[in-house]
């Protein structure tokens, strides 16, 4: 039985919402904020949201989309092209690889995976910055890891509602 065109379009648009949300967050992440801590938070939001969808429903955050989002972020920030794209696909790949271990586990296990992914992201970032320049900042890395874990709690609560309301489970 063929589905009506409107239903197909509706499903396609809904499935594109997470990618669109991350793109919006990438743009917001480079805007000038009144305080430095707000700029730090907005900079890490795309990472948190990508990790969330990679954990909950990878089909709405395909690797190609993650790669392209990373490229857009690199272009807007002036990074070497591929810099953040590489970090994001490594972190998203890490989270996806842990999904099968989370089948029977609770929310704390998910948070543990996200924290590990944040550490993995920062270690890779640190290595890449060290190769491309000479000044990776250890304290900055620790701060960003803490920020990702802290942001995951409210973001996952918010996006869980989006997940239920907008997207059908895979």
């Amino acid at each position, binding site marked *: 039985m063929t589905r009506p065109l409107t239903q197909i379009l509706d499903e396609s648009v809904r499935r594109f919402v997470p990618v669109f949300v991350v793109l919006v967050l990438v743009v917001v992440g480079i*805007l000038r904020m009144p305080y*430095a801590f707000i700029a730090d938070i907005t900079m890490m939001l795309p990472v948190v949201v990508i990790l969330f969808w990679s954990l909950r429903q990878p089909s709405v955050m395909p*690797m190609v989309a993650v790669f392209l989002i990373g*490229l857009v972020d690199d272009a*807007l920030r002036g990074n070497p092209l591929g*810099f953040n794209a590489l970090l994001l*696909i490594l972190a998203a790949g890490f989270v996806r690889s842990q999904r099968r271990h989370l089948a029977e586990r609770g929310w704390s296990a998910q948070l543990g995976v996200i924290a590990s992914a944040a550490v993995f992201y920062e270690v890779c970032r640190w290595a*890449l910055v060290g190769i491309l320049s000479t*000044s990776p900042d250890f304290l900055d890395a620790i701060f960003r890891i803490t920020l990702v874990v802290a942001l995951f709690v409210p973001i996952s609560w918010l996006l869980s509602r989006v997940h239920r309301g907008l997207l059908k489970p895979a």
Partner: protein
Amino acid sequence: MRHQSGSVSQRFARPIKQWSQRFAFLGLVAIAIAMIALSEANSTLASRLRAQVVDAFTPVLGAVSQPVETAAGWVNAVASASSLRDENNKLRAEIERLRTARIEEARLSAENQSLRGLLGAKPHVKGRHIVARVLADPSRGFVRSMLIDTGRANGVRRGLAVVNTDGLVGRITEVGNSAARALLITDINSRIAVRIERTRERAIVAGDNSPSPKLIYLSNETTVRNGDRIVTSGHDGVFPPGLPVGVVIAAGSETVRVRPFVTWRRVDFVRIIDFKPTGLVPQSAAARKGVR
């Protein structure tokens, strides 16, 4: 026939799909690494690609940045409400100081013009100024830069100096049609020829992604001290001479550092200077001397 062609396409499509799913991750990692290497090897191509993406997002950035700046203004207004009286007193004192300074400045300017007239010296700073608004400030990341809403269409070119009322902000490194990127003086790739205003000693301000760039290539007999003003020397041909850069801090330590005059959070508008140095001898006269 249709059934056969359907099954033939399925025979090819399914393995390709399985193969692509299995190797998508590795393929994307390889592509990303290749792109990083290409960006480092051919920065011109990478700059052009980045400029095109920035051009595409400029309308969105312009539209979204306005309400964010308005909201930031409200936040600052609320936050500063409690200190209005103190700020008022400080501003009154500053106005008095500036009134006195303006009288002295007018006297010095008149004296300067008179002396230049006597010497027949040409003004050595000539150029066009382009005012631009700061669209975005992605300086929390790897590269210290800011995006401005003016590009090639308004005559912006790579290498032009970017200043604001406080001092030197940076220089243009990427230009799109409607937007451009300014590399800040704090970026690790930034090098500026400067001199210490008090001693006229030449040096280089080198960014290292920290808030206070280093002052390097000082002579062994340097007498630099904390509080010395650093201005551009103009010897690099990029920045006009005399632009305020910052003030020396940590002069006695192993690495002398400069605190920029610019307050990065408050850079809303900048001026791009299309600097055309005239020199003491016109180009045609120099060429004639060379031919003889």
